[in-house]
C-alpha cells in the first residue's frame, strides 16, 4: 500500500496556484441561485401559458428602450470587472481601482434606472393587481437584490484595493467578487429576455 501512496506525492505541498475554497463555495451558491431564477421564470411562463391574455388584465407590456440601454450597460460592466481582476494579478493596483470603480458606476446607473422604472410602473400596476404584477415585481426586484449584493462585494474588494490589502499574490476575494458579478449579469440576460423581449415579440 505504502508504495502506491508515495507515488502520489511527487508534487510537493506549497503555495497554491489553483482556486481557493471560497471560490468553489461561491460557484455552488451560484448554481443554487441560478436554479431559483430558473424556477421563477418557469413560474412566469407557466402562468402565461395558463392565461388568456398576457400581461393579464390589460396591463401594457413593459417599454423596451430604456431597459435595453440599461441592459447593454450592465452586461458591459463585466468587462471592466474582469479587467480589474487581470490588472491586480499583474500587480497594477491603480488600474484595478480604476476599472472596478468604472464597473460600480455602470452598475449604479443600472440600479437607479431600475428604481425609476419601478416607480413609474407602480402607477400602472402593482404586485397585488394580478399574478402578472406579482411575478414582474418579484423577479425584477429579486434581481435588483442580487445586484446590490454583487455591488457590495465589488465595493468591499475596492476598499481593500485602496487599503492595499489585495495584490498580485492575494487576490482570491477579488476572484470571488468578480465571478459573482458575472453571475448577476448573466442572470439578467435570462430575466430581460423573458420579462421584456419575449412578451413584446410573442
Amino acid at each position, binding site marked *: *500500500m*505504502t*508504495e*502506491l*501512496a*508515495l507515488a*502520489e*506525492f511527487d*508534487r*510537493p*505541498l*506549497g*503555495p*497554491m496556484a*489553483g482556486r481557493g*475554497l471560497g471560490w*468553489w*463555495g461561491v460557484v*455552488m*451558491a451560484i*448554481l*443554487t*441561485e441560478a*436554479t*431559483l431564477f430558473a*424556477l*421563477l421564470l*418557469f*413560474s412566469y411562463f*407557466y*402562468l402565461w401559458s*395558463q*392565461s388568456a391574455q398576457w400581461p*393579464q*388584465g390589460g396591463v401594457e407590456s413593459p417599454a423596451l428602450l430604456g431597459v435595453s440601454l440599461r441592459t447593454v450597460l450592465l452586461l458591459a460592466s463585466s468587462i471592466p470587472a474582469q479587467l480589474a481582476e487581470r490588472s491586480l494579478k499583474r500587480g497594477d493596483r491603480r488600474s484595478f481601482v480604476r476599472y472596478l470603480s468604472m464597473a460600480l458606476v455602470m452598475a449604479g446607473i443600472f440600479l437607479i434606472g431600475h428604481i425609476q422604472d419601478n416607480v413609474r410602473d407602480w402607477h400602472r400596476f402593482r*404586485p*397585488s*393587481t*394580478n*399574478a*402578472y*404584477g*406579482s*411575478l414582474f415585481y*418579484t423577479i425584477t426586484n429579486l434581481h435588483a437584490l442580487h445586484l446590490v449584493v454583487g455591488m457590495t462585494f465589488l465595493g468591499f474588494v475596492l476598499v481593500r484595493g485602496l487599503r492595499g490589502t489585495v495584490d498580485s499574490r492575494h487576490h482570491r476575494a477579488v476572484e470571488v467578487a468578480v465571478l459573482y458579478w458575472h453571475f448577476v449579469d448573466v442572470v439578467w440576460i435570462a430575466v430581460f429576455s423573458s420579462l421584456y423581449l419575449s412578451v413584446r415579440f410573442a
Partner: protein
Amino acid sequence: MTALEPRLHGAETAELERVWRDRPGIAGWLTTVDHKRIGKRYFVTAFTFLLIGGLEAMLLRAQLASPENDLLGPDRYNQLMTMHGTTMILLFNTPMFAAFGNYLVPLQIGARDMAFPRLNALSYWIFLFSGLFMYASFLTGAVPNGGWFSYAPLTASEFSQGHGLDFWAIGVTFLGISTTVGGVNFIVTILRMRTPGMSFNRMPLFVWSILTMAMMILFALPSVTLAGVLLELDRSFGMHFFDPGGGGDPLLYQHLFWIWGHPEVYIVFIPATGIISMVIAAMVRRPIVGYSLVVAALVATGFISFGLWLHHMFATGLPFLVASFFSAASLLVAIPSGMQIFAWLATMNEARPRFDTPMLFAIGFIVTFVIGGITGVMVAVVPWDQAITDSYFVVAHFHYVLIGGSVMPILAGVYFWYPKVTGRMMTRHLGKVAFWLIFVGMQVTFFPQHILGIVGMPRRIYTYHRGLGWDLMNRISSIGAGVLALGFLTVTADLVVSWRRAQPAPNDPWGAETLEWSISSPPPDYNFAGYPLVGSRQPMWDLEPGETLATETEVGGESLVHDQGGHHHAWVTSVLDAEAVEIVTMPTPAYWPLFLAFGLLMLSVATLSQNVVVALLGGLLTAYSFYRWHGGAS
C-alpha cells in the same frame, strides 16, 4: 520523500490539542466550529424531533384506533398530522443526514474539519431556530394545519386564517437556508479537503452518497424555498401567484412543491444507502461488490429523481403524453435502486456476515425497502395511481420507503458508529430487542394500510364510520404503532445506558476499512495529527496485523504538529486526483454564526408578526454578524 512516521501520541501532540480545543464551558459550547461537536448536536436535535414526531404519530393512531373516536377533534388532528409530516421530513430526516455527514465526512476523507467551519455552525443554529420557530406555533394556538405539503388554495389566507400557515411557510423558507448552506459545505469539503491520495475512485461510498445528496440539495431546495416565499407573499402581501381569482394557478404551487418534494425523497434515501454500504462491507469484511456500478447507480438515482415530480400530480388532469413520460421515468428509477440492492446481496454472499445490530437493521432495510419499492412501481403506473391516489395505500407506500429506506439505515448507522462517537460500545442485547420491535412494529403498522387503501379509506381523515370494513385493520395498525414506539424508546434507552455504562470502545471495533477507524474513539479534536496516506479504497484493510496507519506530519520542512502559532491548519488537495496542493489556515470558534442565525430568526418573527422594529433589529444583527464574520472570536 520523508520517512513514514508512526502515529503520534501523548506529549507529542500536546500543542495540537491546545490549539484545536474549544474554550471551556458555555462559551465553547456557543462558539464551537468543530464538525464533530456540530454533528453530535445535529444528531441530538434531529433525534429529539424524531421522538416528537413519533409522539404526534402515536396520537394520530390512537385517534384512528376505533371508528367514530373523539380523542382528537378534526382541528387538532389536522394540526398534528401536518406537524408530524413536517417534523419527520424536514426536522428529523434531512438534518439527521447532516448529522452523519458532518461527523463522518471529514473523518472518512482524512480531513481536520469541514471546508467552511463557521458556515457549518451557522447551518446548525438555523436548523435549531427554524424548528423552534415552527413549534412555537403550539404556544400561539395557531398551528399549521394544511398537511405537510400545504397545498394552495387551501392554504391561502382566505381559507386558512390565523398565523398557522405563516409559521409553516416562513419556517420552511428559513430552514431552507440551513440545508442549502450545509449542501454547499459538503460539496466543497468533499471536492477539496480529501487527504492526498484519496482520488475520486477511492472515496468511501458513504462520501459519494453525501456528495450526491448535496448536489441534489443545490438544485432541489430552491424550489420549496420559492413555494414557501410565494405562498407567504400571497398570504401576507396580497399577491396572486396561486390565486385563480387574480390570474394565478394553484397547480403552480404543486409543481414547485414537488420539483423539490420528489428529489427530497432521494435526498433522504441516497445517504442512507451510503450508510448501508459501509455497514455491510464492515460486517462481511469484504469490499462492496461493483464499487463503480454502485457509484453510477447513486448518481443516476439522483439525476433521474428530478424527472419524477409529476407522478405526485397524476390526478390533476395532466395530458396523456406528459403522464406517460413521467410514469416511464418513475419506473426507470427502480433500475439504479435495484442495482444497489443486488450489489449488497452479492456482497453478503461473499462471506458469512456477523449479525450484530447494525447488520440486522441493514437486512431489515433491504426487506422493508424492497416492499416499498414494489408498491412504488405500482403507484408509478397511472391507472393504478388514479385508483388509489389520496388513499391509505399511498400512506403505506411512503412509510415503507421512508422508514424502510431511511430510518432503518439511520439506526444501522447509529449502532455502527456509536462506539466511534462516544468511545463506548453499545449494550449487547438491547439493540437486538429494539431491532425486532421496530421491524415487526413497522410491518404490523403499515402493511394493513395497503389493504385499507385498496378498500377505499382516504388519507387525512380524522375519523371514519363504523361498519365500512375498516375497523379491524385500523385497530391492528394502531397496535403496531405501539410496538414501533416501544422500539424507538428501547433505542433511546440503549443510547443513554450505553453512554453511561458500557465498555470502552477500541479504535476499530468492527474491523472496518475506512479512515475514521484509524484514530481513537472518540477522535481527538484535531482528528488527524498529519494527513493519512491513502493508497486504496480500504486503507485499514491494507495494514499488516498490529500495524497503525501512517500519517505525514511534515510538509516542506514545516510541521503540522508543532509550532502551529495558534492556527487551525488543514490540507487542501486538487479536485479529481487529490494531489497535495496547499496548507491552509482554517477559521476558529466564533459567536458570529450564532448571532447571524439569531438575526435571521428575528427577521422570520418580524415577517410573521409584521413588526417593523423587530425586522430592523434583526436586519442590523444579521448585517453586522455578516460584516464581522471573518473576525476573531468576537
